[in-house]
């Protein structure tokens, strides 16, 4: 049975069946909105807050989702399976990238995170 998943950040919606995880459901329809990483519950980039709806879930890495988060509906899109219509908000560490993607900006300043411990940062 298929349910409608709504990505609140972008307004994007897609249909996903109960046996398919939300991230795969999105990818299969060539939809965008939730960042795609490992697809396997380890990296955390697909993290969403489920604001509405029921879902089944499978094991996700504690390195990226705490037990408290999991209990409060902050989960990995690649490890949840819709059991009703869902409304989700992208909260993973690449959430900013969605907005960048939408405004077709390619300047992501990708080396900024590589300047860790740099004594003085020249502007």
């Amino acid at each position, binding site marked *: 049975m298929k349910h409608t998943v709504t990505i609140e950040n972008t307004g994007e919606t897609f249909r996903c069946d109960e046996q398919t995880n939300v991230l795969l459901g999105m990818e299969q329809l060539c939809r965008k909105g939730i960042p795609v*990483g*490992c697809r396997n519950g*380890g990296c955390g980039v697909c993290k969403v807050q489920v604001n509405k709806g029921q879902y089944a879930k499978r094991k*996700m*890495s504690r390195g990226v989702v705490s037990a408290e988060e999991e209990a409060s509906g902050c989960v990995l899109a690649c490890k949840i399976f819709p059991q009703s219509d869902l409304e989700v908000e992208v909260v993973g560490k690449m959430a900013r990238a969605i907005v960048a993607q939408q405004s077709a900006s390619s300047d992501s300043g*990708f080396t900024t995170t*590589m300047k860790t411990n740099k004594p003085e940062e020249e502007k």
Partner: protein
Amino acid sequence: MALTGVLRPGHVALRVLELEPALKHYRDVLGLIEVARDDKGRVFLKAWDEHDHHSVVLREADEAGMDYMGWKVASPATLKKLAADVEQSGLATEMSWIPAGEHPATGERFRFTIPTGHVMELFAEKEIIGNNCGTDGQDINPDPWPDGLKGIAATRFDHCLLYGDDLDGTVKLFTEVLGFGIAEQVMLAGDKKFMIGAFLSCSNKAHDVAFIRQPVKGKFHHASFELRSWEQVLRAGDILSRTKTSIDIGPTRHGITRGETIYFFDPSGNRNEVFSGGYIYYPDKPTITWYDESLEPAIFYHDRKLNEAFLSVFT
């Protein structure tokens, strides 16, 4: 023996969320051979062309990622000396000796944490069980490859790429204490002395381990396994698609090390690579330098851009 000190990456210990899917992946898709299990539930595997008892250790855990990486050194005397050198350097923390037999068929290991937060081990002894190619006993009149290989059939565990913050400390430890050379480095164009990536070799390989500076401790980007040709990398892509394995990028080429590559994920989200090619490194080979403005072709030579996942997706 011309190659002394640290000889090669000897093992990588990975945490997986569920053991059975992980085993299907590492054994049936990547084509490693299961060698042993222990009473802690760990599974030990090796690639077909490795002679040592095991090179990959899988442990079921709540969190994905790497527990530690182990390095085979030339002799027990070398082990004692390097352990003392590491201790004396002041660059390592949480040093301990793991008794012989804690890994099956393996001697004692010296364990320490490096400045980027990764746990490393040195060991000198691991039982040699061979590559099963001999036709008249181990290593006697061998065939070029054995029967019964599965899946991608990688030949060996080759290297890891790791993410961490104190790159300078880790590079100092590997080069000045453990004797590695810097085959390639990535520097900031705006500050040519500031390193953001280091590809380190203890052998004739273009790299045995690599580190990229990121504001994290002890993170794992990928474990890489070797194939012998570009055609084998393409075949790996076919197998990964057929088995619906999560592919990250490729087949393509890295500018750094010139390797032909495909990145993919194990069922717990740990990234794997299979690659071929590269070049022969010697300790007197000049270091190759890349600047951050050329980082995209340095990482993915054909696309000439980084995929979003390269820097953000790790375990």
